[in-house]
């Protein structure tokens, strides 16, 4: 399996949107390489363009300047080859399909035979084996996100893109899912980008944390996370963890005021 073989390159990427007659810069000259098999989180104040970065990697937006490449290919080609795994904050499960059918969906879109065994394994991994015939509306918010992550992983994609997948969940569920995600990810380290508001979440899961400034989003800090893997939840009680969390929070707070022009 050519797992963990794909890096993501953001080559001086900028993105601006026109709103009416005004042009608003969302992302400004972000230059970053995410190594194959690396887990990188982007944190920043709201409206800093972190989701825009993910949307460019996910082939949902095109950069105004610079290039995004995954391996050697542009994101749109990766999408066409069904090599992207994406999970969104609003789970995007299809309400008329069961959990199992939702997780199967990428097989159908890729016109590949459905691998039932693989689906069983993955549903088991995310703790949804008992709920495979339930509809999304019968699930809790945390379960829906689990299903959505299972769907993102089912085709064993080259990169995993997570856009605030736990953003709408309560603290306890969120922590729980962080630990689960870390376990799932530890099995086969897949190049991952996580967009999040939570400093703790970013630190616990990532190899590097990228701090973005307020609009337009610029990289102000890249923090390598020194903890080894696999990580147990006890890492979160480490004094160093708290110190790093404080540092990150501080570098974020410097930009809170910058949201207003």
């Amino acid at each position, binding site marked *: 399996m050519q797992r963990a073989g794909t890096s993501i390159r953001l080559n001086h990427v900028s993105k601006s949107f026109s709103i009416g007659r005004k042009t608003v810069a969302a992302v400004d000259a972000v230059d970053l390489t995410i190594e194959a098999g690396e887990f990188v989180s982007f944190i920043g104040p709201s409206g800093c363009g972190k989701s825009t970065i993910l*949307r460019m990697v*996910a*082939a*949902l937006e095109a950069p105004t300047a610079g290039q995004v490449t995954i391996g050697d290919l542009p994101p749109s080609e990766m*999408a*066409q*080859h*069904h090599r*992207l795994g*994406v999970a*969104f*904050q*609003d*789970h*995007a*499960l*299809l*309400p*008329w399909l069961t959990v199992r059918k939702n997780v199967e*969906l*990428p097989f*159908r*879109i*890729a016109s590949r035979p459905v691998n039932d065994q693989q689906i069983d394994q993955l549903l088991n991994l995310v703790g949804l084996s008992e709920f495979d015939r339930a*509809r999304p*509306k019968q699930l809790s918010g945390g379960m829906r996100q689990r299903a959505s992550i299972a769907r993102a992983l089912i085709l064993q994609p080259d990169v995993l*893109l997570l856009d605030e997948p736990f953003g709408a969940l309560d603290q306890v569920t969120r922590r729980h899912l962080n630990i689960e995600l870390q376990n799932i990810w530890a099995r086969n380290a897949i190049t991952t980008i996580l967009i999040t508001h939570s400093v703790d979440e970013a630190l616990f899961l990532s190899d590097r944390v990228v701090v973005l400034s307020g609009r337009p989003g610029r990289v102000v800090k890249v923090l390598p996370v020194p903890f080894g893997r696999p990580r147990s939840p006890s890492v979160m009680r480490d004094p160093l963890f708290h110190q790093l969390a404080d540092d990150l929070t501080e570098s974020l707070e410097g930009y809170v005021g910058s949201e207003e022009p």
Partner: protein
Amino acid sequence: MLTGLRTAKLLLVQISGIVGLIVLWQFWVAARGLNTIVLPGPMSVVLQLLNEPAVYFWNGLHTLALALAGLALGTLLGTTVAVVAWSSRLFEGILTPLGLIFSSVPIVALIPVIARILGYDVRTELAIVILISFFPLFVFTLKGLKALPPGASDLFQTLGATKRQHLAWLALPASLPSWLTGFRIAAPHAVLAAIVAEFLMGTSGLGHVLEGARSDLQMQRALAASLSATVISVTFFLLSAVLEQRLLRNR
């Protein structure tokens, strides 16, 4: 047990309105001393229906067949055209105003035009029912094709779905509730359109009976035909409501 009782109660409430209307009708006829040319009482209408059941049955069957065929073809056409409009902005731009115009033209004004083209026979009647059924299905299907669950369109793009897969796996299933609403609206309209067409074209069917009765001042006959038509129309509505409930049970 309780739900059974509640359903019975609800049914009673719903029927009471209809029964009340019939009682009022009978009372009005008796109190004003109206003769049967002006307004016959409800009993005499029912007797008329039972007197000549074959007339109402066969003509009713004609109306039913016409409405069903027109509704089926109109549904097929409306859905197909909505999908075509969905598939390209250009087609949508062309088709939406056309649909709007056709729906706004009174059916009575359209009939002579269509009759000139297709001839004064059942083909024109069918064309009218198709036209009437077409519009709600076109509008509601198109609306439904765009009513996607949040994030689903982004998901399909990142999965590398083709336009056809977008349609088959996302837009069409998403449009089902809206499509059913369109169908539920179109179904009784199809019966109405069939009767109006029969009334104006006059070959057979309940509309034809109605027309004949009107010119002969046979009000019992006219009302009996109306009653048969109402039964068909309500049946259409109820069946489409049941269909809607069945298909959306899992949503």
